[in-house]
C-alpha cells in the first residue's frame, strides 16, 4: 500500500487541478454547504432540480485533493441523472469507503479511483464531504434557504 500510488492516482490529481462543474449556478433551486471542522474544509453544492432530475450542479470551496477530486467526480456522475440514482451512487460510494462493499463490484465508474481512501480512515471524511453537502441539498425544501452540514454530525 502506498499513498502515492493508491490515494493520489493521476485521475484524482487531474480532477484536483481542474475540478469539473466548479463555480456557481445562476439560479440554484437547492444548495447546501459541508464543513469539516477538524481541517476547515468547506464545500458548497448548488443544484438545479426539476422533476426529480439533477438538471445542473456546481460546487465551490476549498479543500484537500481527495475532497476536491471526489466532489468534482461526483458532479460529473450525477449531472443529468435522477435524484434517486444520485442517492444510490452515494450509498455505494460510502459503502466502498467504509469497507462494506467491494470496490470491484460497486457501480462507481471513475469514482473507483478513490477506493484507496478506505485504507486511510482519517481521510474518509474528506472524500465524503461533497457528498454530504449534495445529500443535504437534495433534502432541502425548495424554499431558497441554504443548509449546512458538518462531517462531525455524520458517521461515515
Amino acid at each position: 500500500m502506498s499513498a502515492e500510488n493508491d490515494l493520489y492516482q493521476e485521475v484524482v490529481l487531474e480532477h484536483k487541478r481542474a475540478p469539473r462543474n466548479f463555480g456557481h449556478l445562476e439560479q440554484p433551486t437547492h444548495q447546501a454547504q459541508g464543513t469539516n471542522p477538524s481541517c476547515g474544509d468547506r464545500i458548497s453544492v448548488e443544484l438545479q432540480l426539476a422533476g426529480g432530475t439533477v438538471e445542473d450542479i456546481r460546487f465551490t470551496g476549498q479543500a484537500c485533493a481527495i475532497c476536491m477530486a471526489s466532489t468534482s467526480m461526483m458532479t460529473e456522475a450525477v449531472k443529468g441523472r435522477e435524484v434517486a440514482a444520485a442517492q444510490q451512487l452515494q450509498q455505494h460510494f460510502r459503502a466502498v469507503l467504509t469497507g462494506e462493499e467491494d470496490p470491484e463490484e460497486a457501480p462507481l465508474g471513475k469514482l473507483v479511483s478513490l477506493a484507496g481512501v478506505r485504507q486511510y480512515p482519517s481521510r474518509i471524511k474528506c472524500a465524503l464531504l461533497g457528498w454530504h453537502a449534495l445529500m443535504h441539498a437534495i433534502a432541502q425544501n425548495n424554499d431558497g434557504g441554504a443548509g449546512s452540514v458538518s462531517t462531525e454530525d455524520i458517521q461515515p
Partner: protein
Amino acid sequence: MGDTDQFLHTSQLPVQALRAQFPVLQQSINGAPLCYLDNAATTHMPLAVQDAMRHFEQHDRANIHRGVHTLSQRATDDFEAAREVLKRFIGAGAQHELVFTSGTTEALNIVAQGLWAAGPGKAWLRAGDRIVVSALEHHANLLPWQQAARMSGAELVVLKPDAQGRVHEADLQALLTPNTRVLALTAGANATGERPPYETMLSMAAKVGALTVLDAAQAVGHTMPALSGLGCDFMAFSGHKMYGPMGTGVLAGRRESLDLLYPLRLGGDMVEWVSLESAGFAALPARLEGGTPNVAGAVGLAAAARFIDGVGRPALDQHLQALRAHAVAGLSAIDGLTVLAPHATQASLVSFISPHVHPHDIGTMLDERGIAVRTGHHCAQPLLDLLCQGPTTRASFAVYNTHEEVQRLIEGVAHALERLK
C-alpha cells in the same frame, strides 16, 4: 536545499543518548523510522517520567488528604512534593499557589468560568466590563472568554495581529480602558510560533487593574521568566506538551487572584464544613481541586519538570531553535511554499502553507515516509483566517529530534508539493 548542510551535527545536546529515554521513537511507520514532529500537540514521555508514575502506582497509591493510613500519607506527600517541584520549575513566589488540573484547557476554563459563575453582584466580571484577548489564541483561551462575556454582559475585544501575525503594544494600549477587567494572552502561539511581548503586555493590563491570564502551554517547557517576575495573575499549562503525562496540567497564580475564582468542581476534598443546606469552601489549593485528583499524573508532571531541568532549558532551547532555523531555511527554499512567522526565531515549531497543495495531502504524503506532522487549523481558526485564510502544515520539535529528521521533513515536503501540485 544544499545550503542547509550547515545545520547538520551542530547540537550541543547528547541527542542520541536522550533518544534512548523515549522507546516510542524506536519504531518504523510505513517502513521508515518514525520521525515525530508533532510535539506542539503532544510530546512523548521519557522513561524517567514513566518510571516515576509506575513507582507511585506500585508503592504509594491511595487516596490523598483523608486517610490516616501510611499509603494515604505517602500519596499525599507525593502529591504535595510534586506541587513544590512545579512551583520551583515555574519560578513561583510565596504569593503564588499552584492547582493541578487536567490540562491547559481546564485551567483556562477554571479561570474564565470562575470569574462569572458567582453570579451578578459577586462575580469579578460585571455587565459593561471589558475582556481583551489576542487573536493569536488557541481556542482554549478564546471560547471560555466568549462565554464569559455572554454570561456576564461584559464586552469581548480582540487584539488583532498585523499581516505578519505580530501583536503590538501600541495596539493593546488603545484597547486598555479603565473598565478592562481581564487580559488573556498566549506566551507562544501554537499555530505560528509567534511570541507576543507578553511581559510588557501583562504589566500594561495589570496597570489598568485588569486580571492577567497567560496561556503558557507552548512556553513552559522552555526558557521563560519566573512567574514571580511577571505581572501575571493566572498561568496555565499542560503536562503532555512538556514530556509529561496526558490529562495533566496546572493553573498557577497569585493567591488573592485564585481566591476570586468561584470553584467549578464542588464536592469532596474542597470544603471546610458541610451541612445539609450549605457548605464552606476550603482554602487554596484544595478549593479548586474538588474530587480525587490524578496523583500519578502530578507525580509524572513533576518528573517531567525535573527531566527538563536535567537537560537544561538554555541548551534545550538552543537545540530546538537550531532545528527550527534549519527547517525554515530548507522549507523557504522550496518553490511556492510560505513559512508563517519566519521572524519567530525563538519558536520550536514551523507552520507553512502552499497555495496549490492542501495540508492534509502533505500530511498524508509525509506519513507515508514515517514523518508525523500536524495539519489543519491547530485549534486557532480565527488566527489562520486572518493570516492565510485556511489551514497550515505544522512541524514542531522536541529534545529528541535531529537535524537529519529536519532534512527528511524538507525533502518530504518538497516531494509532496512536486507530486501534488
